[in-house]
Every structure is written in structure tokens, then in C-alpha cells.
């Protein structure tokens, strides 16, 4: 079986080939949503709510409708009461009846050009009646708090949600008996940690282009992470059959979770339906900040109990998340955060539980790490405090307690590929840990480890032989810039034993591609890669059947040979893919189409081991592991912490393309560094105060050190494609904790609230001096 080959034998896997779309991108010719046009196209714009929570009393659209060039104005009254949502169907295409956050779209306009559309939208008058707001999860959960979704109980939910009033979801997992276990501990540490909202800031703002064909079929292009989620969302909230909507994607200017579920697509489709003309909408940076989605702020109470010798005994974690105005992926983020609360460690007793609440903020949702960076920050900071108290080196303490081979993840799932121990050993050496830890100079170093999943849900692949023996690979997976088209092509080329340039990757299209849940959850390499291997094997089976006829042999006696040949094992006789293609297209059998689909089906919770309540998913994924050391320098006068270097070791199972793995590590580091040190969305009484790049800083070359050392560890995942598992998210998960721990090493200051701003560091230094 092709999937069982080892590294040494690989033909296309394990090579850092350039991305298949790099050329069009360096030439400035790649087409993103903003570049697409259709004949007779209109432009859409929206009006946003000036209130965080208010009832909509009336609309007056006359002034907007009178503007020359305006073709249509839509308000909530023009939309039927349909709802979308990946976990809880609580969100319409537009505000209807009431608004739930400041900036929420309340009306939209289509006009001959963008300027006219934007100007006209501002002429729409909406009469509101203000309602009391809830601007924190604590306030939301208080008795008597204003309720965001009066009909929550009636909403359709895809899981058994524990939800009531403003409680969107409650999740709990427990193993062993934490309450009893505290007595066995020699040391118990308990702290509260806080994290802030982070904006994804994909450099490309969200946008969409919709066109209704004369027969009523809708073509929809948009910046997305899943053409299938776009199709589902649009159809759910507009009440359309999915067979009427064809969802496609141009190149995507990155997505870190923000483009996974709907943004502007439903409004764009509604305007196209109303005007019978193509409509394009591109959000401004401010609108993107205000209306798309962001990373959840967390409050985390973390309690860990250990033996004197450092053996971990028990951990309890309690979470409180701000979910914002709509559920979106929040229940999933809470579920994953709960599952990740214990980290890649063996705790005989553990319990994690938490709530996510509706508030009058922008929806919080999926963002690289999916709840894991927050709980890893808390857990890993606390483990360092424990190491300090016990006088044990932080890496030694981790080595003693990380999951050993054969040990299960919290909740009971088995872990087949586990390179965490090796990751820790590698970064200890690469970072020169032992020396740097001893010589406490100006700079500090900090360690952090994590496990993360890659997996979830359904995916498919079609491998189709063309008339000349080359191939089209069609998976429906959106390449958001991370390079999945390249990686999947390499996997396919390996399985078929042909050069990369004999495979073309089809762009995702719901009319033509097999289902793919999306480019999220670090899942494409692992799950879609499996589907590609399966589809290629299906094609190879057919190829061999026909080759057997030509070669007058048995299919079982045949082997693939590099470069697109099938030969008889141990003999010279062979036939090319070119000949097989010609034969099947023109003579015998019919063209070769290999296909394979799957749904990830390993159980996350083993009921014999753990008790779980309110889990939004049953089968989440296989585990990826990482360890990293960060180095920081602290300016003693200003308190400013700056990142000076990072050493990573990441167990990716098998790197399909090591260069692209490094790209993910670099990018995850930079984004994590911004999150740790300065990125923060700030609300002022319901209003997002910094929705621009002027006011919301992201890391540039001045902030990101050049020295990022990457070690790729490869413990093959048995059912992964050639042993591979995902890497996209884990590279960010470890960053805040390692930087936090480095700050403590450099300054003696332990911060428990992110971001680690100069002010917080300085206050810590001053407090330490006083005490």
C-alpha cells in the first residue's frame, strides 16, 4: 500500500517544492475577490447599527432610494425569518426586529458604483428603541440581565446544547476524582488568567460577488475557507435550496478562522436576487473589524496539584468566554478549550468546565488555535510557577509529566503518534536552554508545550485521468495561502508516482468538487490528504486493471513505476499512463475516475474513562504536538518586552513539504507574538474603539525577530497520508505562554493577563521592588 512507504523511499513527499501558485502571486496576477468583475455589475454597501442593543422600530429608505444610481435598498423587513449557524441557528442574514451589537448590518444598498452605494446607505433612516446592554459574560449571566436571544430555546441546535437565557453553551469533561485528589497533593497552585480579543487581520478584507442566472441559479464567489460552509450558510439564512447556489472561490488573501463561516455573502446574494444583476461587496478594513469575527476573550481559573517530586496529580480548570452576539463557532471553541485545558500531560484526576455567554459584542469565533492558546497560556504559566516553587527545571518538570506513549488524551481518546517528549528534548538543545537558564543576563527564556488536534468532519477527493494520462485533482479544499493545493498535489503525485506538473488542482466549486467541510482545524493535510490517498489508490486500482489487459498479466502482479508507468513486477514489460488513458477514453472501459470520501470518526470521549456534558462534537481529531522556547528582552525603564528569538520543535507526523511547515511555524509565531505582546481589540461601552490598522497594531519586521529556529519532528500518524498530521494552529498555541514565561525569567514578573504590555510589565517590576 502506498501509504505505508517510509521517508527514505518517498518520491514527492518530504520535498520543499515551491507553492504551485507562487508564480502568479509574485507576478501580481493572482485574482482575489476584489479583482473579480461580471458584466453589468453593481456594488453593494451596508448600513451598520449605531447601538449595541436596540429594538428596530421603523425604516425610512426614501432618501436612499432617490439617489441616482441606486438600484435597490433592503432592510430587515425584506428578509424572511430564516437562521444560520454552525452549532446554534441563531443568526439571520441581516438584523431583523433588533440589533445585537454595534456595527451589525441593518440595511444594504446596491448601486451602479461603490461610492454611490456607500453614500446612499448612510441616507437610510432607522428608528431604534435602545435596550439595556450586556457587555461582559459576567453581566450577561447575572439574573435579570437583558436577554439577547429571546427565542434561544426554540433555535435549532446541532448538538445537545446546555443553553438558557444568555448562556450559549456549557461544557464539562472530567476524569478521576479531582475533589478527592487535592488531599494527595503536596503543592496546590490556583490562579486566574485573562486573555483579550484578537483580530484575525487577514490582509485581504472580506468580500463577495453574487450573480443570478436567468434560470434562477446563483453563482457566488467569495473570500472563504470553505465553499461548502458558504453555500450552507447562504441557503439557511435566505431559505434557498442548496441546489440553487453554486459557491466558488478565487485566491484567498488568508483566513485564520475569520472566513470559515458567512460574512457578507448572504447580503450580497440577497441584493443580486433583488436587482437581478451581479452585485459585488468588499468590506472596508473598518467594516471587516466591526462585523466579521474575532478571537474570544477568556477568563480562566486554573488549579493544579502536584507531588513534591513534581508528579502531576490533579488539575481543575474553569472557563468563562465572551461569545458575542451570535453563537457562530463559539460552542466548538469552548468545547475544544475544555478538551485542551489539561495540555499534553498525564493527570490522573482532571476536570474542566466552562460557559460561553451571549453579549452585545461582535461575534467571537474560530481563530487559529480554537480556544487552545488561551488555556495553554494559563496552564503553561502555572506549570512554570510550580517548577519555581519546587525548584525543578521547567523542562525537567514537563518531561516528567508529558503523555507517554500509549497514554490517552484527557477524555480518553487514544494518541497514536506522540512526539512530545522528543519535541521537548530538541528545543532544550537547539535553544541552548541549560546555559541560558543558568546565565540570567538581560534576556529571559521561557518554555511552553502544547498538543492540538487536526481533524474533524467530512472530506473527499476525486482523482481524474485526462486523455493524455495527466490528472486533475479535485478536493473542494480552499487554499487560503498556507499551501494546501501544493501539499495535496504532492500527496497525489506520491500516490500516483508521477511528477507534480502532471497534476492540476481544481479550484473549489460546490457544483463540481466533493464535499469538504473546510480549511480549518489544521485538517486539510490530514483529512483531505487521506481522501487524496484513497482516491489515488482507487485510480491506481483501475489503472492496474487495464494495464493487466495490455500486459496480459494479473493486476496483482503489477507495480507503479516512477513517472507514470505500470510494469510487471520483476520484469521489463510496462505500459504508460498515456497509453492507459488513450485506451480507456477511446476503446475499453471508460475514463478513469478515482474517488474517496471519509468522515473523521475516532471518538474524543471514552465513556469508560471520562464524563462529558454539553460537548459540541464527538470526534474531533488526531493530535499534533509542539514545544517552543522564546527569548525576550525587557526594557527596564519602559517595561517593554521584545521578542528576541524562538526555537520550535513540532511533531507533524511527516512533513509533506518541510518549507511550507516552516512557513506555518514562522506565521504562527508572528501572529502569536502580536497576540502576546500588544494586539487587542478594545470596546468602549459597546463601541469597538480601534477598528483600524492605525489603532490596532500587528507585528511588522521591527517586532518579529529573524531568528526563528524550526525543528520538524516526525512521529508518523498511522492513518495520516504518508504519516502526516496538521500544523497550522499549533504553531501559535504555544507562543503566549512561552513569552509569558520568558518575561518571568527576565524580570521576575509573573503576568496573568494578556497582552503583556509595557505598562503591565513595568507595574510588575515596580511591585516586585516594593515587596
Amino acid at each position: 500500500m502506498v501509504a505505508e512507504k517510509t521517508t527514505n523511499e518517498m518520491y514527492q513527499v518530504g520535498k520543499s517544492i515551491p507553492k504551485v501558485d507562487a508564480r502568479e502571486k509574485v507576478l501580481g496576477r493572482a485574482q482575489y475577490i476584489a479583482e473579480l468583475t461580471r458584466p453589468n455589475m453593481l456594488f453593494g454597501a451596508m448600513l451598520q447599527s449605531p447601538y449595541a442593543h436596540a429594538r428596530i422600530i421603523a425604516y425610512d429608505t426614501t432618501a436612499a432610494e432617490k439617489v441616482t444610481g441606486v438600484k435597490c435598498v433592503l432592510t430587515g423587513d425584506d428578509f424572511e425569518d430564516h437562521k444560520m449557524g454552525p452549532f446554534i441557528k441563531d443568526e439571520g442574514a441581516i438584523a431583523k426586529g433588533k440589533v445585537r451589537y454595534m456595527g451589525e448590518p441593518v440595511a444594504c444598498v446596491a448601486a451602479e458604483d461603490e461610492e454611490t452605494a456607500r453614500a446612499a446607505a448612510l441616507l437610510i433612516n432607522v428608528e431604534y428603541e435602545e435596550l439595556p446592554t450586556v457587555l461582559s459574560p459576567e453581566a450577561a449571566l447575572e439574573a435579570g440581565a437583558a436577554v439577547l436571544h429571546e427565542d434561544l430555546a426554540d433555535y435549532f441546535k446541532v448538538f445537545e446544547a446546555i443553553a438558557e437565557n444568555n448562556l450559549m453553551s456549557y461544557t464539562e469533561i472530567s476524569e478521576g476524582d479531582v475533589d478527592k485528589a487535592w488531599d494527595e497533593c503536596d503543592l496546590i497552585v490556583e490562579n486566574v488568567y485573562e486573555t483579550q480579543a484578537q483580530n484575525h487581520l487577514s490582509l485581504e478584507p472580506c468580500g463577495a460577488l453574487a450573480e443570478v442566472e436567468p434560470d434562477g441559479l446563483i453563482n457566488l464567489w467569495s473570500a472563504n475557507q470553505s465553499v461548502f460552509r458558504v453555500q450552507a450558510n447562504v441557503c439557511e439564512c435566505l431559505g434557498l435550496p442548496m441546489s440553487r447556489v453554486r459557491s466558488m472561490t478565487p485566491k484567498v488573501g488568508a483566513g485564520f478562522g475569520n472566513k470559515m463561516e458567512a460574512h457578507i455573502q448572504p447580503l450580497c446574494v440577497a441584493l443580486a436576487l433583488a436587482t437581478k444583476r451581479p452585485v459585488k461587496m468588499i468590506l472596508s478594513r473598518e467594516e471587516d473589524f466591526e462585523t466579521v469575527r474575532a478571537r474570544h476573550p477568556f477568563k480562566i481559573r486554573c488549579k493544579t496539584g502536584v507531588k513534591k517530586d513534581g508528579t502531576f496529580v490533579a488539575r481543575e480548570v474553569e472557563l468563562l468566554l465572551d461569545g458575542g452576539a451570535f453563537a457562530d463557532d463559539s460552542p466548538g471553541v469552548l468545547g475544544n478549550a475544555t478538551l485542551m485545558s489539561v495540555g499534553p500531560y498525564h493527570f490522573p484526576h482532571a476536570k474542566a468546565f466552562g460557559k460561553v455567554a451571549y453579549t452585545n459584542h461582535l461575534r467571537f469565533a474560530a481563530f487559529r488555535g480554537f480556544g487552545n492558546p488561551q488555556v495553554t497560556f494559563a496552564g503553561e504559566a502555572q506549570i512554570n510557577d510550580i517548577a519555581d516553587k519546587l525548584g525543578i527545571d521547567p523542562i525537567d518538570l514537563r518531561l516528567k509529566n508529558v503523555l507517554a506513549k500509549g497514554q490517552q488524551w484527557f477524555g480518553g481518546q487514544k494518541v497514536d503518534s506522540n512526539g512530545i517528549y522528543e519535541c521537548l528534548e530538541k528545543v532544550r538543545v537547539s535553544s541552548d536552554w541549560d546555559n541560558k537558564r543558568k546565565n540570567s543576563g538581560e534576556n529571559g527564556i521561557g518554555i511552553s508545550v502544547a498538543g492540538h488536534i487536526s481533524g474533524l468532519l467530512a472530506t473527499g477527493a476525486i482523482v481524474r485521468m485526462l486523455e493524455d494520462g495527466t490528472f486533475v485533482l479535485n478536493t473542494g479544499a480552499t487554499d487560503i495561502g498556507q499551501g494546501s493545493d501544493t501539499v495535496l498535489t504532492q500527496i497525489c503525485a506520491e500516490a500516483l508516482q508521477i511528477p507534480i506538473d502532471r497534476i492540476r488542482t481544481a479550484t473549489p466549486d460546490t457544483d463540481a468538487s466533493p464535499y469538504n467541510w473546510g480549511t480549518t482545524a489544521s485538517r486539510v493535510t490530514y483529512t483531505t490528504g487521506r481522501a487524496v490517498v484513497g482516491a489515488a489508490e482507487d485510480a491506481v486500482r483501475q489503472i492496474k486493471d487495464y494495464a493487466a489487459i495490455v500486459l496480459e498479466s494479473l493486476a496483482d502482479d503489477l507495480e507503479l513505476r516512477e513517472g507514470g508507468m505500470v510494469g510487471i513486477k520483476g520484469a521489463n514489460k510496462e505500459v504508460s499512463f498515456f497509453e492507459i488513458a488513450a485506451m480507456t477514453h477511446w476503446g475499453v472501459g471508460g475514463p478513469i475516475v478515482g474517488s474517496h470520501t471519509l468522515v473523521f470518526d475516532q471518538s474524543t470521549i471514552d465513556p469508560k474513562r471520562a464524563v462529558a456534558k454539553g460537548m459540541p462534537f464527538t470526534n474531533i481529531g488526531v493530535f499534533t504536538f509542539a514545544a517552543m522556547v522564546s527569548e525576550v528582552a525587557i526594557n527596564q525603564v519602559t517595561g517593554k518586552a521584545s521578542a528576541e528569538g524562538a526555537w520550535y520543535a513540532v511533531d507533524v507526523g511527516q512533513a509533506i513539504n518541510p518549507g511550507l511547515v516552516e512557513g506555518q511555524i514562522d506565521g504562527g509565531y508572528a501572529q502569536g507574538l502580536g497576540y502576546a505582546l500588544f494586539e487587542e481589540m478594545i470596546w468602549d461601552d459597546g463601541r469597538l474603539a480601534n477598528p483600524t490598522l492605525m489603532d490596532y497594531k500587528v507585528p511588522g519586521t521591527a517586532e518579529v525577530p529573524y531568528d526563528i529556529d524550526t525543528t520538524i519532528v516526525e512521529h508518523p500518524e498511522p492513518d495520516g497520508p504518508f504519516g502526516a498530521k496538521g500544523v497550522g494552529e499549533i504553531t501559535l498555541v504555544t507562543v503566549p505562554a512561552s513569552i509569558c514565561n520568558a518575561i518571568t525569567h527576565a524580570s521576575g514578573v509573573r503576568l496573568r493577563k494578556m497582552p503583556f504590555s509595557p505598562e503591565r510589565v513595568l507595574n510588575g517590576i515596580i511591585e516586585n521592588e516594593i515587596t
Partner: protein
Amino acid sequence: MGETISLNLNGEVREAKAGLTTTLLEVIRDQLGLTGAKKGCNQGVCGACTVSIDGKLARACLSLAVNSVGREITTNEGLTEDGEPSALQQSFIDNGAVQCGFCTSGMIVSSHALLQDIPNPSIDEVRDGLSGNVCRCSGYRKIIDAVRGVARG
């Protein structure tokens, strides 16, 4: 839509319509079909719209089209060699310096200008030269390698 203006763009004279507030970015993208420069912020911060005007780097989103008349404007497309990648562009490909590609044209225009000034830049000189270009996908390391790689040939 404003008056007809004539621009010297990538060595060619191109006509466009521009009002007093029309930006160079809107003109080159929407009217002249050069879409390598991107609108990432429209506020002069991200650098995705970077072009060169009379040999100096400029934010096309902040440059008024009417003020660009009579100047030499070069976009990333103008740096290609007959539509093929230049050595610098090829170095971006070879060094894995492209992920989503949204920042790439701006990065290449800035890097090109940097290399004109400093043919063999150090790591810190490249970091300085690119400090006005945001990339959200990478950690800049491979971009820096791409720029230095072409300098070293």
C-alpha cells in the same frame, strides 16, 4: 468621474479618469487593470498598495491620481521581465516567501527599491526597508531571505 488624466505607468502612457479625490490605487486597479497592488487598509498602514513614484516608494491608497500625472509610476507588474519573474520575484518563489500573496506585490516593490539603494543588505537593513509592509501569513524570515538571496545572486 472627473477629468481624463494621462499617467506614465510602467513605462507606458495610460489614460484614465480621475476626480480630485480619486486615489492612484483606484485608478491602477479599477481602470487600468493592474491589480497586483492591493487595498489592505486604504489608510497608508499595511503597505499592500506600495508602488514607486519617481523612484520613491509611495502608498497608492494615499496618493491622489491627479498628483501622479507627469511622474514615473512603477508597480510590481512593471518589475516583471516581459511578464516573466525578475530575479527578485523568482527569489520570492524559491525562498518560499509567498503564502496568501496579498502582501507580495507591495513587498516586492519595497524590496526592489531597497536593493537599488543597498545592493547587499544585511538582515537588519532588509528589516528596516520592509518595516512599512505588513505580512500576516509569514514571520518575514523567508521574505528577508528572498531579498538577500537575490542580492547574493
